[in-house]
């Protein structure tokens, strides 16, 4: 029985940098695609310099966060400021199915790597561009960071404590989200290409992709003209109570509890050993509980406060209540659930140190996913330039010396 990975035979040139673009390549790489990140020592990607480093040695090949986020991409180095570097990039692209980039609109054109340039060397190429706000429109040149991109979607405006100001999310949730959604977009385009023989230039606006998550609040605006504000941990449609995060014993320990059905409410009441307040008219029906959600949450919090979060989750689950511990970063490594699922794996980096990265975060029953370490800069240069592109040794040495392959 064939056991090839589903994307074996798909080759990707990934010009993506920082986080979202590399995750596109990683996602396809997990599933068998051959992915080469094209980068350069002339302008080292800033995420390669993010601490902490493997064994504490500051080096662009040892950033631990970079490795986890980039694992699965290969790496070749090309100085794209030099015309010969651009020509080699086009030569590589001629052998590829997909080209990924997350620069601003126009940057690839200025490097003579625009869609028309690529089509000239590979007529059915799929070019995947993922600028912040798309390839055209009045905001196309807007400058954002991954963590502030969400401000242009409405998502930040509904994130925060209820009734208070927006609270910023302190890292770019939208980057890996867009990286994974980007892989889906490419697979849609590959499906189309295989059926019709036609490639295309995918216009992936990160703003538009992320704004999909605002669908629930958008519809309330579209239908009722209502403009949502921050909702805390409440149900986005306001149909459930209790629905929140409650304190537990210990430092910064919490539990999430979501009660959607009458059965779950009865389970919670039973777990709390039937306190008298739970029978009050204020909490007698779902609409009453939603109306009096603050008072309800205060009473539930007074009860949860004394419990260990894990013990309490088990107790509530025993009563059929949707409750789970609120993890901190350390818990991710120790939690029996993530351990059982093999979410994180320790691997040996070719440079000799051990590092912990995430493995197959989706489980596939037939496919054994390919898990690799973070790429060293230029680790695939020999293979790509000499074998794939057939560049003779002498020219290869010259290109390295002249810092074209660099």
């Amino acid at each position, binding site marked *: 029985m*064939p056991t*090839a990975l*589903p*994307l074996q035979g798909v080759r990707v040139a990934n010009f993506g940098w920082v986080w979202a673009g590399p*995750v596109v390549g990683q996602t396809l790489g997990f599933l068998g695609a051959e992915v080469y990140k094209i980068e350069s020592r002339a302008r080292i990607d800033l995420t390669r310099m993010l601490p902490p480093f493997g064994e504490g040695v500051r080096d662009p090949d040892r950033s631990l*966060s970079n490795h*986890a*986020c980039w694992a699965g991409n290969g790496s070749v180095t090309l100085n794209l400021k030099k015309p010969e570097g651009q020509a080699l990039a086009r030569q590589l692209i001629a052998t590829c199915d997909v080209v990924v980039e997350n620069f601003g609109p126009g940057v690839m054109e200025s490097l003579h790597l625009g869609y028309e340039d690529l089509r000239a060397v590979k007529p059915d190429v799929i070019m995947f561009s993922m600028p912040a706000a798309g390839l055209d429109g*009045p905001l*196309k040149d807007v*400058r954002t960071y991954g*963590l502030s991109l969400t401000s*242009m979607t*409405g998502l*930040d*405006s509904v994130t*925060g*404590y209820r009734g208070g100001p927006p*609270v*910023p*999310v302190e*890292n770019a*949730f939208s980057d890996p989200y867009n*990286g994974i959604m980007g892989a*889906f977009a490419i*697979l*849609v385009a590959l499906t189309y290409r295989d059926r*019709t023989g036609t490639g*295309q230039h*995918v216009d992936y606006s990160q703003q538009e*992709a992320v*704004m999909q*998550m*605002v*669908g*629930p*609040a958008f*519809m309330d605006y579209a*239908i*009722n003209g209502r*403009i949502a504000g*921050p909702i805390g941990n409440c149900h*986005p*449609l306001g*149909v459930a109570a209790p629905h929140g995060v409650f*304190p537990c014993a210990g430092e910064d320990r*919490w539990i*999430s509890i979501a009660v959607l059905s009458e059965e779950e409410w009865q389970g919670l009441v039973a777990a709390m050993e039937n306190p008298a307040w739970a029978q009050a008219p204020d909490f007698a029906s779902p609409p009453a509980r939603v109306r009096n959600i603050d008072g309800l949450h205060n009473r539930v919090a007074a009860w949860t406060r004394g419990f260990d979060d894990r013990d309490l989750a088990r107790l509530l689950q025993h009563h059929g*209540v*949707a409750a*789970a511990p609120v993890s901190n*970063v*350390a*818990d*991710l490594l120790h*939690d029996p659930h*993530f351990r059982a699922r093999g979410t994180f794996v320790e691997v040996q980096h070719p440079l000799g140190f051990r*590092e912990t990265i995430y493995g197959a*975060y989706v489980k596939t*029953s037939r496919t054994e996913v390919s898990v690799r370490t973070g790429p060293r800069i230029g680790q695939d240069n020999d293979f790509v330039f000499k074998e794939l592109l057939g560049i003779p040794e002498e020219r290869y040495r010259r290109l390295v010396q002249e810092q074209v392959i660099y």
Partner: protein
Amino acid sequence: MSDGALQGTTVIELGHMVSAPYCAKLFADYGADVIKVEPPDGDIARRWGPFPGDQPHPEKSGLFFFLNTNKRGVTLDVTRTTGRDALLQLVRRADVLIENHRPREMREWGLDYASLSQANPDLVMISITPYGQTGPYSEWNGYDLNAFHLSAAGHRYCGRPGEPPLEHGTFAADFYGAVTAAAWGLAAVYGRRRAGGGQHVDVCCAEAIAATFVGGQNIGGYAQDGVFERRTGIGMPLGAPATILPCKDGHVWMLALEPGQWNGLARVMGNPEWTQLEMFQDMYVRAQNRDAIYPLIEQWTMEHGKWEIMEQCQANGCPVTAVFTVAEAAEHPHLRERGYIVDLEHSELGRIRDIGAPFKLPASPGGPRRPAPLLGEHNAEVYGTLLGLSTEDLARLRRDGVV
């Protein structure tokens, strides 16, 4: 059903609420024929709203509408033998089944992967649940909120110290799981021949976020050095300015880290003297002096509107953006010009605005074209034409309450 890229792919959705329906919507938006199978009393999302004038009506939920465009809808009680049999007949004709029920329920209904793959070995079954199909919590009850906070995303990145960790104000874990499932699931379909047949794709929403968002940035450092960080309530604690600040008419995402960005911001503010102080010359030093710098910047932002601030900062090389309200996002000329917001006609809701395609494929456009199905709208079409049931058979199933 359409000329989209995924034309020819048949998807059965046995989903409710958000995750599985959104995943199936992504397939439907790009041309797959998606048949949504609802229980006789409908997907729970039909009861969640938002409803016009807050008047509940099973055909008028805005959330249900948004999540189910372009699909055909049938009703079926899969907990009964005749219902299960009809579902298996649909599965035999399908490429993909997308579901988000608890694993035990699928087993009890005889619809677990072992049973479905027997009916159709080429089937790609996509399961999207808060905790996944395996592991000690797999049979736990859970919703979006539980999955999100199990991932550590809130504890690490959102909320003020001493106060509860926060989720984004939406079904963030459900959406994240749905998108992850769409990518991995479509890869399994695309490479089905290479991989040797169908398979079960098990997505745990908590795990997808724990790995790719929180773990990616934090787990290597924690595993090596044994230290970890937690939320601060500030956008970026190590550099400044990098946070959300109030302004005259709302909020802005204030960002000026690199020297060029900081100089640009100073210019826009009219180069006040304090911007030249030694303590504000470097993003890291500014962050150490955040108690001094944020009130100074805020004094200026409070005198200006968000659009003016965004426009001038952007023009001066500083990546400040307005915090768009949902209305401002919905009405923004940029999104209008790009055709992101679309109008659809629905028999109960009338003309309704909807969010368009998540990405643009010029050669094979996607996005919502047909409204979400009414409850059981395509029963006759699907059971009659596709499965070849006679009018009498269908009437009998209706009488028995299976359809």
